[in-house]
């Protein structure tokens, strides 16, 4: 009887040891695989980063080609002030176009967005800021809100006068219904804004989107001023 008990204890002890050991091993495996899972999450991130670098590279390559072409043209036309001046005009127009200082046209999307008669249905300046941000992310090259062109330093603010909220874009008052025009890659703009659960138009039932060709977006109605920012002197390498 005594001997039997000893064997039983030993057996049980052994079983417990084996089980505990297996569990321990598994804990380690799980720990390792968890890292893999995190790294795996990074994989999608990595692909996105890769795509964005490729795109930036592509854009820069195109710009380099363009700059070299301009450089050649200037060199060829060095003798003639007239022609050099025309080249400069071209460059200036391009800069003005990107800055929003010219009327532009192109294909894109129009978003109609309006106040709803509920507590949360009223469009706020933050809503519009968010929308502009999403349009920029989707690569919009020109944006306007109720014909106010959105340029680099455009502000979209909320002011409260006697209990009533007003939205000012470029310090000009805008009211519902809001018509937001954006020119860019039409397909990309549409899909980005209507993405399931996260797209702006998907999330806001009081916003609708339509694709339209040959949208005209007016220029910024004002002058840009540079008073405080001086060009930094280039450090020689």
């Amino acid at each position, binding site marked *: 009887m005594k001997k039997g008990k000893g064997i039983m204890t030993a057996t049980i002890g052994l079983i417990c040891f084996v*089980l*505990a050991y297996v*569990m321990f091993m*598994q804990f380690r495996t*799980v720990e390792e*695989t968890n890292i*893999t*899972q995190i*790294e*795996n999450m990074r*994989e999608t991130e990595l692909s996105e980063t*890769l795509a964005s*670098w490729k795109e*930036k*590279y592509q*854009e*820069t390559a*195109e*710009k380099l080609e363009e*700059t070299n072409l301009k*450089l050649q043209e200037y*060199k060829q036309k060095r003798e003639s*002030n007239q022609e*050099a*001046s025309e080249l*400069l005009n071209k*460059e*200036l127009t391009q*800069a*003005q*176009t990107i*800055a929003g*200082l010219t009327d*532009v*046209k*192109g*294909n894109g999307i129009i978003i109609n967005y309006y106040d709803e008669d509920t507590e949360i249905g009223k469009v706020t*300046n*933050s809503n519009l*800021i*968010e929308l502009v*941000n999403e349009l*920029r*992310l989707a690569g919009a*090259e*020109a944006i306007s809100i109720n014909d106010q062109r959105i340029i*680099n*330093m455009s502000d979209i*603010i909320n002011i409260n006068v006697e209990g009533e909220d007003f939205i000012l874009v470029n310090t000009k008052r805008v009211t519902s219904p809001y018509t937001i025009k954006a*020119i860019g*890659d039409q397909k990309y703009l549409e899909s980005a804004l209507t993405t399931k659960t996260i797209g702006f138009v998907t999330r806001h039932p009081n916003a609708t989107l339509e694709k339209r060709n040959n949208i*005209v*977006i007016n220029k910024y109605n004002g002058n840009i001023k*540079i*008073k*405080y*920012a*001086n*060009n*930094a002197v280039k450090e020689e390498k």
Partner: protein
Amino acid sequence: MKKQKTQIAITLGIMCFVLVLGIGIQLRTTQNLVSTAGGTYRENGLRDEVLRWKEQYDRIYENLENAEQQLEKERQVSISSDDNSVEKQEELKKINTYLGLTDVVGEGVIITLRDNTNSMLGIADDIVHDADLREILNELKNNGVEAISINGQRIVPSTAITCAGTVIQVNNEIVGSPFVIKAIGNQNMIDNLTRSGGFIYLLVNKYGLDVKVEKSDKIKIEKYTGVLTNKYITTVE
């Protein structure tokens, strides 16, 4: 004697049950993760590729910078005798500064935001969100600033500030706490920015964020290291 035996049996039974349960749970977890284990391999490849493209990009961007410097010299030579053109060239410089394509220095304010690391609030409120950064930029723009950067990323017309998971991106580049926002403009705007009830006031007093706002006589803001495109917009005459 019999009672004691039963007790031992029950104890052992419970122990076995717990161990088996533990193993069961772990097996299931491991199974779920096995499918993702292949990621690491692909990922290393991806990481290499990202680095390669970034390198390539850096190289071509340097080429572009050189070409642009040459272009500016050539432009100056070509138009030196034409007053009208000199004026236009100044205008071109001004627009490029406004667009964020040049390094600039000037007076202004520096805002530093930090995630609150030892707070009692829920984690949603006490970290810096992409929307917070957008609102602060909007306030700065409202105060007429001429150049802005967030952690060295220059704000240009195509800039989007986004959040993917816990990561904030500006110009598609990851930025993290502390967020240093530099803005060149009239430094007296500081009173406006820190006014009671303003956005920064709310961040500090309602959400417990660590925000520092300071004036500076000389701030340097780096240019945008990317390209602004006008592929989809054409100027309307």
